[in-house]
């Protein structure tokens, strides 16, 4: 795992993914967790969870993301399952830092929508 690779994944998500910018901190957290989990399954050849409507939502977002990542970053195909999990873990930390922990958005923690 290299920080450069995490940066590449992060830059992709920043540019393409609206789910990281939902209205409230808990929605953002739920999306980041759910979509990266589904992406990990897809990238490591595991069957993604499809039981609940939220599972299917995360799968839909993750599917597009994974196909883009494969196209943009061919090195991802050569990464082993453990490495993929590390990369996505690093991506999750960085996304959480940017969009939740250190976000300057004042509305993130309002209790109401």
């Amino acid at each position, binding site marked *: 795992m290299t920080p450069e690779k995490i940066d590449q994944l992060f830059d992709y998500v920043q540019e393409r993914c609206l789910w990281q910018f939902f209205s409230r901190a808990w929605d953002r957290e739920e999306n980041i967790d759910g979509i990266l989990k589904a992406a990990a399954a897809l990238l490591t050849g595991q069957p993604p969870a499809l039981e609940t409507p939220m599972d299917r939502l995360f*799968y839909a977002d993750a599917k*597009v993301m994974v196909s883009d990542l494969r196209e943009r970053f061919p090195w991802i195909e050569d990464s082993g399952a453990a490495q993929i999990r590390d990369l996505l873990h690093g991506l999750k930390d960085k996304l959480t830092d940017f969009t939740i922990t250190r976000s300057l958005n004042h509305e993130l923690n309002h209790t109401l929508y």
Partner: protein
Amino acid sequence: MPMVLLQCDKDIPEREKHIYLKVDGEDSRDYLPVANASTIPGTLSERGCAFCGAKLVIGGVLKDTIQMIHGPIGCAYDTWHTKRYPSDNGHFQMKYVWSTDMKESHIVFGGEKRLEKSMHEAFDEMPEIKRMIVYTTCPTALIGDDIKAVAKKVMEARPDVDIFTCECPGFAGVSQSKGHHVLNIGWVNEKVGTVEPEITSKYTMNFIGDYNIQGDSELLQQYWDKLGIQVIAHFTGNANYDDLRSMHRAQLNVVNCARSAGYIANELKKKYGIPRLDIDSWGFNYMAEGIRKISAFFGIEEKGEALIAEEYAKWKPKLDWYKERLRGTKMAIWTGGPRLWHWTKSVEDDLGVQVVAMSSKFGHQEDFEKVIARGQAGTYYIDDGNELEFFEIIDLVKPDVIFTGPRVGELVKKLHIPYVNGHAYHNGPYMGFEGFVNLARDMYNAIYNPLLKLAATDPRGALTTPAKEAAE
């Protein structure tokens, strides 16, 4: 120093917090413009009022509903004709406007009786229409007219009608944004779940935050029909009032305009467990991505791919024709908020256009997070921009074309910079594949229009009658 104090703002230094110049290596954890905050005294804001956000943007789109505006006549006209959202029933909502036309004596003695009379009159005049939204405005809110009580009385007298009340006077918030919020939350609390839809497909969704501007919803509806997805409610493009009462039965909420309608999607998720999927419906690349995600959710990927292939075959060569001619164009986007982030990357990727300045009237910080993540370095990101700032930004970035509303559009036309209506479009629809070709065509026609050069030529030369400025 990425927050920028423009020269014209030297006497209102608070404006520095609202204008950001993106620099490589920085991000929205370091700087994020203040947004959705009160307009600073001394700045001539381009914003609309909170009532306008509820009526003009969302409620007024409905095609089978009387929009009773309880206020002076000006509130009605200001929120009637500037948006062009047609409907497939002969554009009922664009042909008529309803107002209680409050005058001084009604303000002094109260307007409830006048409202009740106007509501009956409207229903009597249009007996085929059984649905109504009643809005308060500044004066009727200030005198405390109880529009809910009046609506209840009218519904008791007319059991076949249904009325929704929206209490969001112009002063209720800092901009249109408050009106979006009040209507969204009021609707989900009072009306969703009161009608059961007829389910005609295995796949059902609501399409939220698309107002059928020049036919956007009708164009996208062709895609959903091809995919076999039943749209229970369009919120609110080309929609009927009762469609929106059935929103609780959809399996998925697809959100285009997260600013004006993200609230209802969030509430539907919280109350009914319906997932929220945000997509961009402008641009080839984005539209294809949105269709892929929706198809993946329903497990109909093959149909989705076939639709995308068909649309690309039909429209991509036309888009590319314009791309060749638009590459390198410098564009400014001065609209409400979300179109900044919907468009900046789609015009860049699909048309080779560079967005050099963006201004939002009512975006929140969430919108700035999105647009700064997607937009370029060297671009200005402005909250609640005013006229003098626009002049200065134009000098700084020299845009070739500006997408904005008719008011600012008139201003930039005088500078002989081409303007395209970024709110209501020049010749839309702009959504979907076909729509983005329309957008490209309007941009191309604006930039290459020879009239601009003619308009900039002053044949009077030295004979021009001098006009004195007040200060001289």
